[in-house]
């Protein structure tokens, strides 16, 4: 069995933040499940979504922390969210000016909690399938450039955005591949033993 033992894929924690109702849950759901959730409610605290992606020859695991936008559902846990985060995705709603104006607040929060300067950060504008666009692309681009944030505008709702949304996370994954995993194994977690479909007799039995 020794020979068939694969190395555990590295896990990277990506935290998604932004105002409430900008579509963080729909964005991450679209990436992980490849569809638009039929209905969502306000996220309480956090939700985890995990997906394996292949970057070059390596499989890595992206653990996406879909955090609550509403202050009251997150206040006690904020530092917990940012701990060991390998990347941060800031999300605003292109049809909601205020959510864009609040991005600096989210950046400040991230600055306060993330000590490493080399943690990749991205800016994502959602709901760009809607007509009532309040945040025009050029303005968002200027802001993104000034803050060294790659900018993406997407719609988690439209099927055609799937590849674009995948690209967002793959961009992050490529960056992260160069780094070491930032989620340490917890103490006491069992050593993984390669498992076989029908091995009734365990190696230590």
């Amino acid at each position, binding site marked *: 069995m020794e020979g068939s033992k694969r190395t555990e894929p590295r896990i990277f924690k990506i935290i998604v933040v932004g105002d409430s109702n900008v579509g963080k849950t729909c964005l991450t759901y679209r990436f992980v499940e490849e569809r638009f959730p039929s209905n969502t*409610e306000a996220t*309480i605290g956090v939700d*985890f979504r995990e997906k394996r992606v292949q970057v070059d020859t390596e499989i890595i695991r992206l653990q996406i922390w879909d955090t609550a936008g509403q202050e009251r559902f997150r206040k006690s846990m904020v530092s917990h969210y940012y701990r060991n985060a390998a990347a941060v995705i800031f999300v605003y709603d292109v049809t909601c000016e205020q959510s864009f104006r609040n991005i600096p607040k989210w950046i400040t929060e991230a600055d306060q909690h993330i000590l490493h300067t080399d943690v990749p950060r991205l800016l994502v504008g959602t709901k760009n399938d809607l007509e009532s666009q309040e945040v025009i692309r050029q303005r968002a681009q200027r802001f993104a450039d000034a803050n060294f944030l790659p900018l993406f505008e997407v719609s988690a709702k439209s099927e055609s955005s799937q590849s674009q949304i995948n690209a967002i996370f793959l961009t992050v994954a490529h960056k992260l591949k160069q780094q070491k995993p930032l989620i340490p*194994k917890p103490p006491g977690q*069992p050593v993984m033993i390669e498992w076989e479909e029908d091995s009734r007799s365990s190696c230590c039995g």
Partner: protein
Amino acid sequence: MITRNRPPDARQKVDPGVTWSANNTYDFDTGSTDSGKPPSWTGKPTRPTSYSSVSSASSRGSYLSDSLRLGALAEEHQRLPVAVEQVINELIETEFAYLNSLQEVMTGYLTPLRQEVKKNALPLTMAEIDVIFLNIEEIAAFHLNIYEKLCQSHENLTSIANVFINNSEQFKIYTYYCTNLPHSNSMLVDVLDRPRVRAALAELQKKLGHPLPLSTYLLKPFQRVCKYPDILQAWQIRTPKNTKKGGGELDLGHKVEMTVGSVASRQL
């Protein structure tokens, strides 16, 4: 030992993921950062219509009126502001729903999985089960205790606050749960790669009648602990400051909030 009546089935069945919604009738947070606009993009939440009735004392589920006599409480304490009563009702009802789902996870998933593993019938180890379920049993036992005490303290608000204050130290058990939940999630993803485990979990989910998978239910303790400061703050806001009695409760509510709120900071 207290006998718990079953909650209305409808609410349990359709309310698996989150016990609370930002769009429900209890918008406690007056100073919310929420823009307040309707969820035009994410679609309307499918909150069951029965849920809104929770806010009205008259149409509250009989299981609560029977066991907690909250209706009687409202009549006896005319001075009690309606808003405070709502907060307390919500606290107790959601506490019950929460306890219920914890027990479903244990009896519906944890126990059968352990039995299967004992029989060597599943490609899964006890250690992996421990990583996935963390200390959920400890949390459930704690909340059964809390719930029983809440039921016994229908007399007054101070006793309700005391339930939390006297047990505040025990909230530390959430530190372990919340800190390790990401690892639990990863482990679950791992074991779901094994076709037989995946099938077994799907079967158990079907038996429970849960529309959403185990991972959603494992989030509940995290969500619950995020909710306590919110509920207690609502309590605090709704409690009149000018009454002597209210002042005492305000203080208690504040103490509770501090305790629960510090769970997160302790783990860092």
